[in-house]
């Protein structure tokens, strides 16, 4: 009864072009969680620790891919510039969560994992917000396509040496910088990666594909606020979007999804909404009432749904949940809460919904992937 009524309202509001408002009455979806899904060797010099999970996805064979911030981002001192490397790894697990392999060891552009998707052909796509790159790995683990170019150098200027000897406890933490802002070694001397036309990303966050294999990149949470479209060979086709809150504008695109009809759904984080475009980028509609969206996943069944995670605080410790949403923006139900315990979500940054009722959820503020079983 309630749902019917809401659905009617939703349809009416969409028809009139208005935005939906908060739907606090969405029913809770019962669920179980396997919060300790991933198993790695944590002993000795070859230990592997999963860190913040930028992205998780599963291929048709059941392999689970986790693009995670672990190890250390390094800065290497060089001639007048500083280069960054490391900080993220792509780990491969079997369907039971046992680590079986690693891909992309020591590649150039693994710095700060922000997303991972597996396409219908079982290619694995990593998205990195510091390298500002999207890399496609073939099912055998080789690199198939690189979009965007990593900035050559980072803006690190050395701090001044401590003022005099014995400059106080743990000296070296005070004192002015050695160079004035913009001086030697600063980013002003270092051009960011130029990339191929259309692929000069600034903190891209997500990738999606249509039935033709065209590639859509959410770009992103830097200041580009656009969606870039490429053909399946990586040739730039078009882009749309700018910074703002009007239709077709964004304040941080956190996630993309494409439905069977080719419509493009963009999670507009700062504007707390999802915008819907056609395949050419023409604005079609939007919906709110889904909180502050972090990530989305489009199911593949006859009736498609979006799973959309929400976090109302910066660390997912106070206000968070995941909701199941119809393509009209109607919230079907929601599950989970904020925090670090099982069945809580500390920044759910990635959802795999290959199976509509068995999700993989990767979190940033808690170093894990939860396997979620939704009860019907």
């Amino acid at each position, binding site marked *: 009864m309630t749902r019917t009524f809401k659905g009617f309202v939703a349809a009416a509001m969409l028809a009139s072009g208005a935005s939906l408002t908060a739907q606090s009455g969405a029913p809770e979806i019962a669920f179980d969680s396997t919060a300790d899904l991933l198993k790695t060797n944590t002993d000795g010099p070859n230990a592997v620790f999963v860190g*913040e999970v930028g992205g998780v996805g599963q291929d048709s064979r059941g392999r689970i891919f986790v693009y995670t911030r672990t190890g250390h981002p390094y800065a290497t001192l060089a001639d007048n510039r500083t280069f960054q490397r490391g900080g993220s790894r792509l780990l491969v697990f079997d369907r039971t969560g046992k680590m079986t392999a690693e891909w992309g060891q020591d590649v150039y552009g693994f710095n700060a994992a922000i997303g991972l998707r597996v396409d219908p052909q079982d290619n694995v796509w990593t998205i990195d917000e510091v390298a500002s790159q999207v890399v496609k790995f073939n099912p055998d683990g080789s690199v198939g396509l690189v979009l965007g170019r990593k900035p050559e150098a980072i803006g690190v200027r050395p*701090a001044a040496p401590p003022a005099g000897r014995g400059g106080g406890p743990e000296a070296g933490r005070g004192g002015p910088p050695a160079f004035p802002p913009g001086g030697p070694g600063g980013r002003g001397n*270092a051009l960011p990666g130029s990339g191929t036309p259309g692929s000069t990303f600034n903190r891209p966050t997500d990738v999606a594909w249509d039935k033709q294999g065209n590639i859509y990149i959410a770009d992103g*949470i830097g200041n580009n606020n656009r969606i870039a479209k490429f053909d399946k060979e990586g040739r730039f086709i078009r882009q749309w979007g700018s910074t703002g809150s009007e239709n077709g504008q964004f304040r941080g695109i956190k996630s993309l999804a494409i439905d069977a009809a080719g419509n493009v759904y963009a999670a507009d984080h700062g504007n707390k909404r999802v915008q819907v475009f056609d395949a050419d980028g023409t604005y079609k509609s939007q919906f709110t009432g889904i909180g502050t969206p972090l990530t989305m996943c489009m199911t593949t069944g006859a009736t498609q749904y979006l799973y959309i995670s929400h976090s109302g605080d910066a660390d997912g410790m*106070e206000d968070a949940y995941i909701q199941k949403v119809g393509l009209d923006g109607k919230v079907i139900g929601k599950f989970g809460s904020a925090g670090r315990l099982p069945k809580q979500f500390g920044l759910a940054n990635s959802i795999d919904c290959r199976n509509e009722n068995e999700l993989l959820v990767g979190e*940033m503020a808690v170093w894990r992937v939860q396997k979620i079983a939704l009860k019907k």
Partner: protein
Amino acid sequence: MKRCFTSSLTALALAGGLALVWAPAQPVVSAQSKATATNVPVIPHEPVPNFFKNPPGIYTGENMGIATDSKGNIYIYHRAYETRLFQYAPNGTFVREIGRGNYGFAFAHSVRVDAQDNIWAVDEGTDTLVKFSPEGKILMTIGRRMDPVFAIANMPGQGAFHGRNEKYRFGRQTDVAWDQQGNIFVPDGYSDGRVVKYDKNGRFVKAVGTRGSGNLQFNTPHSLATDFQGNVYVGDRGNARVQVLDNDLNWKANYPNTGNPWAVCVSGGPGPKNPGKQYLYVSNSWQDSAPAAGAEITGEVYKMELDGTIIGKFGRAGKAPGEFATIHQMDCRDPNTIYTAEINNWRSQKILLKPAAKSSAN
């Protein structure tokens, strides 16, 4: 994440090589001060020679943290090529490395072992507490490593005070301890000036403190210990005092006469509560810059009753066995066996106290 992407500074910096603005330099923290306590009896002490034994190819760097578990194992958290956490057997033999390459290790600050023998690494480089099971699996983290994009945009930075006081993020937090209920206490730190309490599941309970020199104000709360009653002893280093708080973080007392407390420790271990009498140890450490002038007035460790009454002291600044430079953390599970982690000497020591022997004041 939200913080990062809403940061106009970040956006500008990434956008086009615009000049970054850095915070004005912090005034240099005052030099280490001489303890004001006088006529303190000396407690005879002796180091166990060459106690910690590393196999070939294993080295420790600056020893920042040291802690024992209930079985006598010893954990050293140190800054080498990487920040690393080593486990040693009760006889001082290297056993294994814990947590290698995890995302929470960048710049060691301290390590503590809780009542269940979980090992907590306190890392001021990642602003993260990492809780390991005795087997070395990560059970929980609190705090978050700064997003790399935000970190790059903020460089070079000085790690200076900022006072952001966020519930679930730290500003170079320094230590951790627990009460008998498992509540978690964190002194935070260099860039905040407060003490934070979480429940045993890491849920924020409350925080107290601002930067300053009054009661419930801190100038680099650098070390923290709890007693079996749940009282909290904060090494308020820059203010040259130990501040004592109750379990709800209300102010109780200041102990101002033992110099600048780099490290505090309450004997008896983390619990479960045992009937033994507890003592407070406070290290007036030689500065890590090791100025020659400081060596004569620092380097000693005080043994105190929990009410602040000084019982005695031991040690002095230096590099010889039994001397200290610079004690950064102590373990005193056994009140007569003190483990010291030292920055400048790249070592830890096992120190045996001989409290029964009478000694003359110096």
